[in-house]
């Protein structure tokens, strides 16, 4: 039975020789994740199961990032529930304020997710780790509780849509623009219940960070997971974050795909997703200079070092337009430190931007940059639903870090090329 990459990982973790789409399986998990919103609910459910200990204290990661550092008394109490549980259970990968970051940037950086592994997280953007060739998917708090107790989770084996990438991204086009284009094409339920597998000659030129951005937004097309074929870049990345043994899986050449979509990377342009769906995209150049009030650069989608380098490149020697608030949030402490070392933080502050400690903050309308009625923000985040960043009458426009920074300078939505020409491809991967 030929299998897709996702199906192979699921089969192996279920102890089966093969699986097929639609089959319900129970699989072992390599890592279980929760945050300050979802873990407290999961902990309450875990306590009902009646087991004294978690299945493996080294295979659980708990990250206070959504309303942390504690936004108010209620969120402080949620964080406390998680902290006390972590202490009592001896959870090895609990990340306290000062060491934490946004979970989906933090876990790969800490070497907690490697190719071929199976990860469930009580957060929908757990699909981010597909970037490294892992199967990872978002679940609810009850699933998290069950997985913490039993080390297993139930799955319906998904069908897959294959995306064959050709060519290279050019100019200011980034991984964010690629995934926004794809979601614009297939819609917010275009990959419902399916996995999105990314393969093809175009992969080679996509940085690991761009792959994280792409896989992160698979859920925005309704997908169960997004997954990238493992290549030289993946191996080099894995070696740089961990010395653990891992296993590579590749789709069979005759695996069945529900659909194959060929993507010509050279044709991707900087995109903007208009409110109130991530699929509502158009080229930034066609956004008619829509005026804005705020820019947010950060989140699990685009808060990594290459993202900050791109934003700083645009902001260097320029200023945030009058009447615009620009908030930059490095995704992890490591990213923050690196940005300090490289002088990026200085560039941001000099341009008139606010720089925050790592947090999800405004991405989910939590804190650190909430919008008032009628206000408009360009954000490098992943969702622009009604009320996502604050008042139900506010608006969120999704874009890449370069585009968002350009909008901050212009005070309205523009293509970054209007502010400054793009450096050569790959510049932000290595440039210090």
């Amino acid at each position, binding site marked *: 039975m030929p299998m897709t990459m996702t199906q192979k990982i699921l089969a*192996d*973790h*279920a*102890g*089966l020789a093969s699986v097929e789409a639609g089959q*319900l*399986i129970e699989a*072992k998990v*390599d890592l279980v994740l929760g945050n300050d*919103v*979802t873990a*407290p*609910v999961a902990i*309450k*459910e875990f306590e*009902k*199961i*009646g087991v004294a200990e978690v299945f493996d204290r080294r*295979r659980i990661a708990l990250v206070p990032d*959504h*309303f942390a550092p504690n*936004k108010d008394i*209620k969120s402080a109490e*949620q964080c406390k529930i998680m902290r006390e549980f972590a202490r009592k259970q001896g959870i090895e990968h609990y990340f306290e304020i000062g060491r934490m970051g946004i979970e989906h940037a933090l876990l790969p950086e800490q070497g907690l997710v490697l190719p*071929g*592994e*199976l990860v469930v997280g*009580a*957060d*929908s953007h*757990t699909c981010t780790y597909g970037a490294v060739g892992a199967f990872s998917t*978002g*679940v*609810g708090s*009850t*699933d998290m*509780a*069950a997985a913490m*107790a*039993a080390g297993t989770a*139930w799955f*319906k084996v998904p069908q897959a849509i294959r995306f064959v990438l050709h060519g290279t991204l050019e100019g200011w086009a980034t991984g964010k623009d690629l995934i926004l284009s794809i979601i614009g094409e297939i819609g917010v*339920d275009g990959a*419902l*219940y399916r996995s999105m597998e990314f393969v093809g000659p175009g992969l080679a030129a996509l940085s690991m960070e761009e792959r994280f951005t792409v896989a992160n937004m698979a*859920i925005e097309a309704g997908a169960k997971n997004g997954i990238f074929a493992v290549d030289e870049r993946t191996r080099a990345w894995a070696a740089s974050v961990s010395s*653990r*043994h*891992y*296993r590579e899986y590749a789709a069979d050449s005759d695996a069945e795909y529900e659909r194959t979509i060929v993507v010509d990377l050279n044709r991707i342009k900087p995109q903007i997703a208009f409110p109130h*769906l991530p699929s509502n995209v158009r080229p930034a150049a066609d956004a008619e200079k829509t005026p804005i009030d705020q820019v947010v650069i950060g989140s699990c989608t685009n808060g990594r070092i290459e993202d900050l380098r791109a934003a700083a490149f645009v902001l260097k020697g320029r200023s945030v337009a009058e009447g615009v608030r620009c908030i930059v949030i490095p995704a992890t402490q490591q990213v923050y430190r690196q940005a300090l070392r490289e002088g990026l933080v200085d560039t941001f502050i000099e341009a008139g931007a606010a720089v925050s400690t790592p947090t999800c903050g405004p991405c*989910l*309308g*939590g804190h650190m940059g909430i919008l008032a009625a009628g206000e408009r923000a360009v954000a490098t985040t992943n*969702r622009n*639903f*009604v*009320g*996502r960043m604050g008042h*139900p009458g506010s608006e969120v426009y999704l874009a890449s870090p370069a585009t968002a920074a350009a909008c901050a300078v212009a005070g309205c939505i523009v293509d970054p090329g209007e502010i400054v020409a793009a450096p050569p491809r790959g510049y932000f991967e290595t440039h210090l």
Partner: protein
Amino acid sequence: MKQGRRAWKYPDNVDTDVIVPARYLTTSDPAELAAHCMEDIDPDFASHVAQGDIIVAGENFGCGSSREHAPIAIKASGVSCVIAASFARIFYRNAINIGLPILECADAAAEIKGGDMVSVDFETGEIYNLTRGARYRAAPFPPFVRDIVAAGGLIPYIAAKLRTPKSAAPSAPLAEDTPQGGTLQ
């Protein structure tokens, strides 16, 4: 004569941010969450919904975040069932896991109007629109999911399984001793 329940009708792509806005996620108390249920799409819902009412929606209901607060809020608001043309994946599993009945039925989702009186037979998956005299059939749950629902949700299901000695493990295809893709050391 069957007694119907009032249907509350919503469009495609109702996301978890409008079911429970994130600004209320600093609590996990069901009653508090229910007080804000559907607030950003239908400010009247929470104050007017009655015990047993039914939500009917289009495609991709519950898309967005994995917050279980969404089905919890719906359940705590008294809603007895959600009928949609399709559900977002995580919402679907969360609803099953917490014991909120949900039915996938495109015909019912298309034809039922807000305010119609609707009744549901969970045994057969049949949906009756008493206002319009129509009957629809929803896709039944697969057996594995039925087991979870029969146990009263995922927590009692897992609790029962963890109490079962390994030799007498249930028939679910769970492999206890297979090598895995990686190990954390």
